[in-house]
């Protein structure tokens, strides 16, 4: 046990010392939902920044991801938020910008390294203002147990039909083919529907069609994607309706299942956990389709709290984040989070390299509900979570789910009304 009194005195002493030391230096606090990255920021990124700017002290102060939105908004409203704000893509950050909490970054040197697509997740609808520096995107695909594949003599599937046949082979061999549950809902939508879907709705063509109102969730590729998702049902683990996301991660990394419908972020998570070889394949295309589409989703960025008293220092930090040095550090410290700047970056992790190579083979798109479509009631993304999970639990047919999602969108989104 510790000695309370002594600890207390010690704490006071440390405080006094630290306080004195701070006097000449600016301290920047970063608000983030990435609890997972605390060590990387403390040990890698911040020291690298301080090598250039020793007078700017940076504190990475994450909040548990489930609490982040609520806590950050409360702090912004009350004026106690940190100097740098980690930005969710699209409307949540846009809302913060429009309420005056995030500063415009139009004039930040270094923003020219980012493509319009990379910046679109953190720009106003007309593109006139950009308010966060893009950090990374994540790519969807399937991570598999390569040892199990070798044992069963399986190769990476090219078409969806091959994929389903392989799932049957794995099932017949007595293994669990697909590792995913539905209790947390978001995996069903994110790693299920949005993972295989772009191949059916032809990536950007379908996504922009939804926004323009030329196609609905209840037709064409968007229903096809729900049908393809429903094919997974017989191959999920027993009792998957109550399997949580951490359950699924542990199930797969303990070697109990063959294929994990994944986001690229899993690479860094799985690496230290597995004692088998991992491989990855991109979402298999329907038979006869030549072009493949992948979800290369703009996921995370960093902006400046407009009320920050350390505006200059915050901009200095953001400018450094646009450099090749940061891209290289970040991309390699967090395999599976792919830097969005145009700098050439070498990734050390072969699996991460596999994912990023798909950018050259396939047409990239982002998740269908993120841009514009999640502004109304009901929220399109929340509905996709619920209905994708219900398709997988077998409580709704793909057609029913598609119709329900479309009804929700038509409820408020003018371009989709009365088509």
């Amino acid at each position, binding site marked *: 046990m510790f000695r309370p009194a002594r600890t207390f005195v010690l704490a006071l002493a440390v405080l006094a010392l630290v306080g004195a030391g701070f006097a000449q230096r600016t301290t920047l606090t970063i608000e983030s939902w990435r609890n997972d990255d605390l060590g990387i920021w403390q040990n890698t990124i911040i020291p690298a920044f301080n090598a250039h700017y020793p007078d700017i002290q940076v504190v990475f102060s994450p909040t548990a991801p489930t609490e982040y939105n609520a806590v950050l908004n409360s702090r912004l409203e009350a004026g106690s938020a940190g100097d740098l704000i980690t930005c969710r893509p699209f409307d949540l950050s846009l809302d913060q910008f429009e309420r005056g909490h995030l500063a415009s970054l139009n004039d930040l040197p270094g923003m020219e390294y980012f493509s319009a697509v990379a910046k679109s997740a953190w720009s106003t609808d007309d593109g006139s203002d950009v308010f966060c520096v893009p950090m990374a995107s994540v790519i969807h695909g399937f991570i598999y147990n390569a040892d199990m594949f070798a044992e069963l003599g399986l190769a990476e599937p090219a078409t969806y039909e091959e994929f389903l046949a392989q799932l049957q082979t794995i099932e017949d061999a007595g293994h669990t083919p697909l590792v995913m549950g539905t209790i947390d809902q978001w995996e069903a939508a994110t790693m299920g529907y949005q993972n295989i879907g772009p191949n059916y709705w032809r990536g950007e063509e379908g996504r922009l069609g939804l926004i323009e109102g030329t196609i609905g969730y209840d037709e064409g590729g968007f229903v096809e994607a729900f049908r393809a998702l429903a094919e997974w049902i017989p191959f999920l683990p027993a009792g998957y309706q109550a399997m949580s996301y*951490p359950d699924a991660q542990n199930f797969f990394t303990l070697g109990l299942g063959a294929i994990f419908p994944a986001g690229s972020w899993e690479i860094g998570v799985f690496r230290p956990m597995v004692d088998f070889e991992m491989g990855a394949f991109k979402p298999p295309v329907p038979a006869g389709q030549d072009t493949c589409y992948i979800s290369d989703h703009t996921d995370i960025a960093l902006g400046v709290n407009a009320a920050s008293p350390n505006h200059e220092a915050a901009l200095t930090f953001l400018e450094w984040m646009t450099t090749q040095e940061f891209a290289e550090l970040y991309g390699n410290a967090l395999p599976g989070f792919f830097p969005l700047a145009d700098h050439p970056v070498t990734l050390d992790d072969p699996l991460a390299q596999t994912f990023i190579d798909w950018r050259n083979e396939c047409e990239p798109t982002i998740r269908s509900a993120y841009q514009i479509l999640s502004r109304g009631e009901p929220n399109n993304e929340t509905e996709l979570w619920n209905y994708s999970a219900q398709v997988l639990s077998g409580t709704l047919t793909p057609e029913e789910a598609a119709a329900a999602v479309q009804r929700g969108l038509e409820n408020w989104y003018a371009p989709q009304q009365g088509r």
Partner: protein
Amino acid sequence: MTARARLPGKGWGHWAQVVATHAVLLAYAAVALFPVVLVVINSFKSRRAIFGSPYDLPNAETFSLVGYQTVFSGARFDLYFLNSLIVTGVSLAAVLLFASMAAHALAEYRFRGNALLGLYLAVGIMIPIRLGTVSILRMMVALGLTDTLWSLILVYTAQGLPLAVFILTAFMRQVPGDLKDAARIDGASEYRIYRLILPLVRPALGTVAVFTMIPIWNDLWFPLVLASGERTKTVILGAQIFLGQYVNDWNAVLASLTLAMVPIIVLYVIFSRQLIRGLTQGAVK
């Protein structure tokens, strides 16, 4: 605490009753204890063993202190524990003092608006406290109390009062009037009478103390919003760092939260003893 069985006869019926009583208690104790024991034994196992064989005791192969090592190597958990103890202790003392005073007034004196004030003091438990988050945070910013333990103590004291006043008033109404009247005839002041009554409602005070301290100790929300700085973190908030977006360090979560149970159990044992003391002292007087 000993069973002074002063029953007329100790026949079969008596022993059957003894056995049945303990059988029921033991059975429910098993239900209560099993998940808690699972938490504790798994906190001493490696990650693979937690999920590979969650119900086994740690053995030579699976025993691991990695969770406890993580807890004590990275963050300042000793400081977090101290913060939790200060916040819980000070808030609890304030709630018990203020609430018993108010409850005494409500139970003892008939004044205009008594019932209405009683209801007013209970209204707070009828609205989810998180609703007031932004207003509370704004006040703390204005008072310059963000990232101080004071902000938590003030909020928890306010938050603990309604329930405490509600329960203590009900119990204080049951204290017989003769005793107070006798004291008044002896010329005791009203403050003296309050101090006379307190020991009589000891069981209720003990209960209210337990009631009040548990949500304070286990709260995550207000430490997160009001005092998330490294110096002011509570244990529960400190443990959150192990719950990531895509990966949870269950070893460290189990280790830190298992440790967090210990002080609160000690406090519980202390306060729940008041239940028994109240009985004997009340009987003597």
